[in-house]
């Protein structure tokens, strides 16, 4: 049996999202200078932030309304997004919480400062 995955479940603008717990360094007050913007839509308040560190030094903030829980999820409840939903750089799948699909976010992929891939020589 595969190990469960710890997911931070949070809310932005009334919608639930999940992110891999291992990507979250801490939950803190939002520092606007470090904000990645609103890739998941605008939060109602957005005073709190998930703080993550995609490249080892610079901390980035994703503004959220609230953290709801840290949920230990069995892999059987995880799903890739169907092809008709289209590719998304940061929505990587969904957690089926009974009938509700909670979108799973790759926090590192929300980094607007990511270097773009160099074209092949």
């Amino acid at each position, binding site marked *: 049996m595969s190990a469960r995955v710890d997911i931070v479940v949070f809310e932005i603008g009334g*919608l*639930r999202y999940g992110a891999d717990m291992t990507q979250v360094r801490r939950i803190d007050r939002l520092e606007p200078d470090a904000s990645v913007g609103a*890739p*998941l*839509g605008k939060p109602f308040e957005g005073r709190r932030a998930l703080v993550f560190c995609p490249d080892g030094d610079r901390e980035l903030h994703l503004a959220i309304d609230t953290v709801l829980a840290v949920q230990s999820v069995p892999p059987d409840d995880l*799903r*890739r*997004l*169907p*092809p*008709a*939903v*289209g*590719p*998304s750089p940061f*929505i990587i*799948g*969904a957690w*089926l*919480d*009974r*009938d*509700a*699909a*909670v*979108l799973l976010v790759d926090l590192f992929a929300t980094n607007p400062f990511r270097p773009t891939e160099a074209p092949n020589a």
Partner: protein
Amino acid sequence: MHPTPLQRALAEAPDKARAQAARPDEEFFVFKLGELTLAVTSGYVREVARLTPLTPLPRAPSFLLGVVGNRGQVMPVIDLLRFLQQGESKVVRGARIFVGDSNGLLVAFLTDAVVGLRRIFVADKLPPPAGGGSATEFLMGVVQHRELGTVSLLDLPKVLQSARATVVRR
């Protein structure tokens, strides 16, 4: 002994109604959406279900309302009114959806009401009205149905193909 008129008639009787044999028909799944009565070939409809909690997708086109969990699968939900540029549906919890299946692509479509299955004579199909806007591109035709009035026959594989292409392009 000579056969009676009834026995002669029975010997020549057809196996099924001549009118039916001469008028091939197709089965359609019929539903209502806004002012429209729409129908899709029943073979493309996997099931009818109730709308479960809808999760909107960030940065999705407006016709892609979000995703739902359905029988352990994550499934996109499309508003055909928006897709066909005919207005927009009201999303009501518990509304009826039908799951369309074309080439393994499963998509749920919002409806206002499900009418059910109806057989439509192939000969009764009329071409889509000219000047009907972009929606006609996705119609196989229309029929004047005695019970339902004007029914627009939707080309579901074309809808799915186009919706997917639009989503992927973004």
